[in-house]
């Protein structure tokens, strides 16, 4: 198992190198760079602009920029943000935490609602409850996130029950630790809810079909023939198997949440990775764009890895094959 984890992490390296290469290529193809707005100002001298170009390395061919960047990156120096005037690595740290926290909150929220609903819909397949929940799931799936976000912002702004925007309150640093946690949670509820709603429909549908498939398995017949109650059959034998496909889609769906959080973060001016990427792109803040895209990919790969580990833990057929456990 440990060997498997190490292999997966090592496989991340060539992938990241490739992504960075592509990013440099793409950035070279898009017109303009960080200095474009400055160049347009007539009162700035050409000498000064050339000095800036040299300073940022923008006078070089993009492949040379790539290798220069690579040389620094192996020393964990991801470059300098032109706009924020701080090292990229420093910016990324706190943003990743905020985004991952948002995505995980949205996911936990969605799972807590979707798993029981999907299970009930499967057990009562064809009933009014099943149909109603299918319609609601479809509605939740097709509702654009920014639209729901705007409604949520409007409602909360009218009632004033929750803070809107940001990650913490102004007085955050002066609060005791538990009040800090509550403060962050309050800021998290709204974006996590909006991000999670679309995901509920998705998780529910997968759960429902996984549960229905498992209900027809032969071992369910054995469990009933043994004399177990219907509750034991459903909530022990079926559920325990039906949850496995959910774990394997966890890694995949996490990427939906990460990309979904881009929009949510902008709507709620939530200081996460998505927000950072968005403004970095607008300002052509080259190293920041590259750094944050690479971080998103790393987070994704790690989530998939966690999903694989969880699945192995949950399913003995996987755990005990691949020479894993011994």
């Amino acid at each position, binding site marked *: 198992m440990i060997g498997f984890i190490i292999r997966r992490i090592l496989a991340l390296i060539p992938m990241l190198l490739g992504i960075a290469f592509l990013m440099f290529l793409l950035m070279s193809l898009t017109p303009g760079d960080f200095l474009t707005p400055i160049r347009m100002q007539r009162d700035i001298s050409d000498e000064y602009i050339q000095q800036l170009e040299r300073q940022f390395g923008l006078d070089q061919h993009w492949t040379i920029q790539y290798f220069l960047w690579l040389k620094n990156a192996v020393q964990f120096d991801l470059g300098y943000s032109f706009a924020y005037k701080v090292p990229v690595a420093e910016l990324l740290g706190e943003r990743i935490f905020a985004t991952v926290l948002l995505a995980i909150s949205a996911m936990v929220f969605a799972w807590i609602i979707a798993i029981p609903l999907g299970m009930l819909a499967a057990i009562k397949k064809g009933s009014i409850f099943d149909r109603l929940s299918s319609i609601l799931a479809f509605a939740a799936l097709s509702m654009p996130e920014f639209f729901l976000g705007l409604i949520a912002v409007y409602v909360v702004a009218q009632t004033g029950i929750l803070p809107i925007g940001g990650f913490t309150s102004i007085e955050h640093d002066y609060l005791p630790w538990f009040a800090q946690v509550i403060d962050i949670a309050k800021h998290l509820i709204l974006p996590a809810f909006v991000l999670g709603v679309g995901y509920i429909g998705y998780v529910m549908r997968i759960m429902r079909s996984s549960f229905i498939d498992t209900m027809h398995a*032969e*071992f369910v017949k*054995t469990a009933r023939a*043994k*004399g*177990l109650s219907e509750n034991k059959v459903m909530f022990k034998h079926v559920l*325990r*198997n039906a949850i496995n496909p959910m774990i394997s889609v966890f890694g995949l769906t996490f990427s939906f949440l990460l990309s979904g959080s881009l929009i949510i973060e902008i709507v709620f001016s939530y200081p996460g990775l998505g927000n950072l990427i968005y403004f970095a792109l607008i300002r052509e803040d080259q190293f920041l764009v590259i750094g944050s895209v690479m971080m998103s990919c790393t987070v994704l790969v790690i989530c998939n890895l966690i999903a694989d580990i969880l699945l192995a833990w949950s399913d003995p*057929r996987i755990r*005990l094959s691949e020479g894993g456990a011994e």
Partner: protein
Amino acid sequence: METPLLSVKDLRIQFNSREGVNEAVKGINFDIEAGKTLAVVGESGSGKSVSAMALTRLLPKPPICEINGQVHYDGQDVMAMSSADLRHIRGKEIAYIFQEPSVSLNPVFTIGSQIAEAIKLHMPHIKDVNAHIIDALDKVGIRDAEKRIKDYPHQLSGGMQQRVMIAMALVCEPRILVADEPTTALDVTIQAQIMDLLREVRERTGMAILLITHNFGIVNHFADDVAVMFRGEIVERGPVDQVLSKPEHPYTQALLDCIPRLGEKRERLTTIDHDKLAV
């Protein structure tokens, strides 16, 4: 004549679906006497499995499936039983083993815990559940039972999985074992071993067996009585030697003609002409 342990009268089973009504079983009668073995033979789709499942109402609920007729176990009316009472019959009085052992065990639980489930359910007075499981596995010929109880089903061979199924079925000492094609999915040599095992446990426990099979060779050596099913009906029923030596129904005859006998040269393969039989 004493009353049989299990008696089935005019059992009818139909499945309702959008495509229409499928009368899977059309009024069959049979008895199982204590300690005796009844074999049910017939081609696939003739209604053997659903009849066996109906004995403890293990079929889907109406409107998908409707069961009519009477099933009496030890004087109790199975069709009128509450589901709580029914669960005391399932596994405790009438236990099942199925055709495909590899999918009949739950893949995410150890075999020990799956057997323990039956013990805790039907024999709550037993203190040392573990010793009981090991004993049950021992009795079906599984070596190193102490180690095997921690195994998951996929770690065992098909034959071993079927032995586990048998151990699980027998652990609560049922009076009837329903074995639905217990060897069909296994290799030929393993088939013989499993049949030997069933014979041995039958002698030891004196339980009755309802054996579903399409192998007349097994019927001949294993069963006391045989019922031949064809398209949802029992077309012939009686003691094994009588039915095998003097089959009365043409379908039984046709089935018997399909078995190649040892040392007998056959000119051509016999096939069953269904249209002629159905008239």
